[in-house]
């Protein structure tokens, strides 16, 4: 078995194993790149983005540090019957705290109005474009839980996979002497265009 053979097999099998992610990142880039179209299309439906689930009184001091704020957000979610989801807690203003809880399929927003001493829980209406962009943007190692972090490990694998495809693809192209001239032209044109974008945008 030659290096060229191994290179081709790695290129192929890595591509097949990571194919769902490559497909997902491709499709989900469409609503990112054309978000105005999708937002305007949704606006014509005239449906509210958020629906009230519950509201209750609450009077509790909001912690300052990021770690304590996250713990506080987790407690508020648990008290609202939401557990085991990814979430983030953000101090919107001195009088408002937002806790976003999300899965691929469902998003919930908890707002603590400090000055009004009440907590409001709202569910976001499902939208396919937001489902896709949510999946696209999922990553990082800030969440608790093995499965949550393992997704981020796969995201790393996809990135390393793309770097491997680039390197193995270049090697396969170089092994085809008849294709070198046009290949060089494609590389030069792409690199030059990219350099212009980098400097001028």
């Amino acid at each position, binding site marked *: 078995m030659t290096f060229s053979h191994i290179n081709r097999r790695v290129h192929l099998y890595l591509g097949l194993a990571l194919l769902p992610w490559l497909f997902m990142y491709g499709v989900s880039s469409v609503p990112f790149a054309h978000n105005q179209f999708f937002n305007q299309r949704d606006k014509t439906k005239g449906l509210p983005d958020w629906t009230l689930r519950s509201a209750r009184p609450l009077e509790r001091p909001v912690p300052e540090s990021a770690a304590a704020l996250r713990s506080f957000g987790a407690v508020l979610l648990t008290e609202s019957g939401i557990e085991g989801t990814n979430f983030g807690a953000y101090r919107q203003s001195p009088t408002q705290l937002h806790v976003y809880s999300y899965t*691929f399929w469902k998003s919930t927003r908890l707002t603590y109005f400090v000055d009004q001493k009440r907590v409001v829980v709202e569910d976001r209406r499902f939208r396919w474009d937001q489902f896709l962009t949510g999946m696209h943007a999922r990553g990082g190692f800030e969440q608790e839980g093995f499965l949550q972090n393992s997704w981020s490990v796969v995201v790393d694998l996809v990135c390393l996979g793309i770097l491997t495809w680039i390197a193995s693809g270049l090697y396969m192209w170089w092994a085809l002497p008849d294709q070198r001239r046009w290949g060089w032209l494609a590389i030069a044109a792409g690199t030059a265009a990219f350099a212009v974008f980098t400097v001028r945008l």
Partner: protein
Amino acid sequence: MYLALFLFPWMLMYAVSTLAMNHRALFVDLYGPDPAPFQMERKAVYDGVFPEHANPGAIARQLLASAGLQGAHGVTRRTDGTIVVNRHDLLTPRRLTYSPADRTLIVEKMSPRGNAFLERFHRRRGYATGYRLDTLWAVSVDLVIAAMLFWVLSGLWMWWEMKATRAVGASALLTGVGLFVLYLGAL
């Protein structure tokens, strides 16, 4: 193949920037949680004249043109009338602050950070800015999207054409699809 060779800088940028974004916590440890600070670049009295009742967008474009910084930007007008223009330059983002009271124009540039540069690149998209180069960039992003979907389909077809790789390939594909479906249900 030629499409892949042409687009490899884009794929390289998207892969490296995703790695940086996936490990943002490392950069927060390095730089702190706040965005990169701005540094004063120049300060001058702006002696240009704005059309009567000019909106912030028109004022921003005039300020950018006079500073030689035309390109994608955002603009806000503060309650005291100060115009703040954020020029979304990929390499060096700048902030222009024009104070009508004393007609001063301050130009500040953002301190360079590798991860922030990659993230700006990754997030740059859309046709809304009205600048020709941004529109061309948006077209190139659409081309990358189309290429990714084409590579998925053409890759499947090429694999199926090679009978010797069908069994191992099917195992790799089923493993990937199975894992993806698991995540879809669980996350």
